[in-house]
């Protein structure tokens, strides 16, 4: 179980641009939860994921992963428990390195890296097998430089790399938003497969209300740094887009003037 307890984070504290990104937010994530995260721009979705990952230190509150208090752990230390796929498809892989080098790096996530050879016996074969499961033909291109791949291919690779070492939680930050519809669909299918096969605890941010409803067992909606809606189980499966909008009005009692929410 992953517990966020009363987390608060300000950005640009004390200046004219001060923003309260997380406002006393608490969240309990059970093992195996696949949570879709929605909310308007600036609601705090990415901030929530970044707080979990350790990209910054909270101003207040605590985070525990399986009873381990990671609140003050730097990002690289939490990485052995957390896997991330970013919105920018280029951010998850090293362009100057080859596919197999990237995978070798990911295989060692969270482990001390010593002076042994960068790849060990049998790993290449394993990479080939894993790559063949995503069906992009990358298993024949192990020695190709990742910089030569398209955004979609790199994102697929990032997804695969994220799960070479089983993470306690998988963080997906709008990971298909920058891809064309066809590739986005492929990556989304890949996500569903990987998460269900390995029963990964997952948080997925999406702007797409349909995806938010279709995927996962739980849905949370953020607004101004707080969770204003938390639905799971049957209540979630029977949700419609209209329901979500109405829930929003009900909790906040205000007009929702966000185009992107209405148009999806």
């Amino acid at each position, binding site marked *: 179980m992953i517990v966020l307890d009363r987390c608060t984070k300000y950005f640009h504290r004390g200046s004219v641009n001060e923003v309260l990104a997380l406002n006393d937010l608490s969240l309990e994530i059970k093992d195996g939860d696949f949570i879709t995260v929605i909310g308007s721009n600036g609601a705090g979705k990415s901030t929530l994921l970044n707080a979990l*990952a350790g990209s910054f230190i909270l101003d207040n509150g605590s985070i525990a992963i399986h009873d381990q208090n990671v609140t003050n752990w*730097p*990002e*690289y*230390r939490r*990485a*052995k428990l*957390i*896997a*991330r796929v*970013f919105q920018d498809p280029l*951010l*998850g*892989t*090293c*362009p*100057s*390195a080859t596919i197999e*080098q990237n995978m*070798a*790096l*990911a295989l*060692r*996530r*969270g*482990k001390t*890296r*010593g*002076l*042994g*050879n*960068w790849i060990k016996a049998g790993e290449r074969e394993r990479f080939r097998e894993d790559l063949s499961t995503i069906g992009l033909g990358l298993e024949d291109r192990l020695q190709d430089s990742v910089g030569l791949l398209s955004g979609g291919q790199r994102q697929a690779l990032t997804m695969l790399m994220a799960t070479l070492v089983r993470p306690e939680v998988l963080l997906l930050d709008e990971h298909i938003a920058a891809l064309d519809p066809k590739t986005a669909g492929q990556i989304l299918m890949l996500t569903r497969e990987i998460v269900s096969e390995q029963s990964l605890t997952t948080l997925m941010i999406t702007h797409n209300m349909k995806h938010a409803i279709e995927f996962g067992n739980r849905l949370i909606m953020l607004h101004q740094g707080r969770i204003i809606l938390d639905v799971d189980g049957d209540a979630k499966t029977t949700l419609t887009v209209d329901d979500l909008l109405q829930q929003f009005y009900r909790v906040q009692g205000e007009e929702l003037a966000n185009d992107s929410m209405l148009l999806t």
Partner: protein
Amino acid sequence: MTIYAALGALEQGLVYGIMVIGVYLTFRILDFPDLTVDGSLPLGASISAVAITSGMNPYLSLIFALLGGFIAGTVTAILNTKFKILHLLASILTMIALYSINIRIMGGPNIALLGADTVFDPIIALGVAPHLASVLVFALFAVLVMASVIWFLKTEFGQAVLATGDNPQMIISQGVNTHLIIIVGVGLSNGLVALSGALVAQNQGAADVGMGIGTIIAGLASVIVGETVFGSNSIARAIIAAVLGSVVYRLAIALALGLEFGGFAFSPSDLNLITALLVITALITPKIKARLIAR
């Protein structure tokens, strides 16, 4: 150009090639512009000179020189990672401080090594002429350093170093402490530069506090010439290109210094201008080539 001048350029190219590998490590691999080298080259020279004149074995003095350079590099890296000082500024600060430190180490702005023990003695004792002994010794060291660095970059740690310079966010998410990587990387780079300085001092018969001025320029020029002429597709190729680039750079300098157009001749103080022109040429040539091919 005479054989003597060419041999001299080869000798310089090889010994400074070790420095160029160091510059390649920071400038290209870690994406960390590091001016510390202008101070760590004479640091290595000072440490080695003081050690030798105090009776230490010249080969042993090299190890201390390397250590000194390593420490200087870590200072710059710590200023940058822990104290958030811009890398360029941090390196300048360390470089400036090293000027005074080097004078303290030597007890003055220079130490003469005329007639002192050097790493060339065992080779000369075998009967090799002095001007060939230095080329041989430097070639051996250059090969040793190249092989070590190429091996290092193929280890797990080395791959993390490459990734840190290529995509820091990615490697952080893979659990690597990039601050540590940068500290070790910049330290290693300056260690190599200091080693180079120690060898240069033993060759030229003196360690002088000002001998490092322009090191970063020479290093960058050599890296760029090496990449342009020899390519940098793989790690091994890039490291070897660094040393070869250094040799080509020194050959070009020697050629320029030997030129005479009707009364005008370059003097050693024109070196900076010649280097700048060389780097500009090396940077522009690929672009001109591409344009000509496009037509």
